[in-house]
């Protein structure tokens, strides 16, 4: 995994074929989770948390006005990951600032979904050593390097 910023604010992401396939697969799965109304409530609550803690009516109204738009924009971000990778073919992935702006929230949401599946709910909950735990760490590293590249 290599992440570098180039002139013109383009970030270059070097992933091997396995990493590209993994991320493409994860983005597609995330998109399905977004559109699965019958899915895991806990996962759903992480992606669409309550805006009002003690006012269910206000929260319902907030959701009524924001939910579909949020799903659409999160879904578009997932699509942007797949599109960036597809456009790169076997080569390096080029992300302009707009693409980075789509990747970062999507990587965050992917990690939120996986964290819920792994039972990571508090700061001191350990990341399990299994494969999903490794995917979780790998996504964190990718995201950290992307943030470093654009914030430098």
């Amino acid at each position, binding site marked *: 995994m290599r992440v570098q910023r180039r002139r013109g604010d383009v970030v270059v992401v070097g992933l091997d074929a396995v990493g590209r396939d993994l991320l493409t697969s994860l983005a597609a799965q995330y998109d399905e989770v977004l559109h699965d109304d019958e899915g895991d409530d806990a996962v759903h609550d992480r992606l669409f948390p309550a805006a009002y803690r003690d006012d269910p009516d206000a929260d319902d109204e*907030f959701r009524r006005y924001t939910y579909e738009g*949020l799903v659409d924009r999160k879904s578009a971000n997932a699509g942007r990951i797949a599109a960036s990778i597809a456009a790169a073919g076997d080569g390096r992935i080029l992300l302009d600032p*707009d693409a980075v702006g789509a990747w970062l929230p999507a990587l965050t949401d992917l990690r939120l979904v996986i964290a819920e599946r792994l039972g990571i709910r508090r700061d001191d909950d350990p990341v399990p050593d299994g494969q999903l735990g490794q995917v979780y760490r790998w996504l964190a590293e990718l995201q950290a390097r992307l943030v470093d590249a654009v914030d430098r």
Partner: protein
Amino acid sequence: MVDVAQLVEHWLVVPVVAGSSPVIHPTMSLAQPDEVLEERTLIEPDRAWSTVVWNDPVNLMTYVTHVFRTYFGYPRPEAERLMLLVHHEGRATVASGPREEMERHTEAMHEFGLWATVERV
């Protein structure tokens, strides 16, 4: 680094439906200079509501700082101060003003994957 070589076949928790290619939309830009302007103009009359960001065990500290800088337009030191408040105190008020405005910020935070709520000041 994680060796992803053996991972890709094992994490198809949700099977990918053939032909369900995601729709591509123009995505939000992280830089929103209009937001900064509005932050300045709404400072006065109505501060009855606030947007609060809460700690979670997932988000990277650098990413939270990045969001506070790019979305709210906070200078890096202020963005880092707010991020550390979230990290150590469990919450930070990142904006205050009219209710509709605070709902818009909260929606934006949810889009970034941050846990935010609208609170009465």
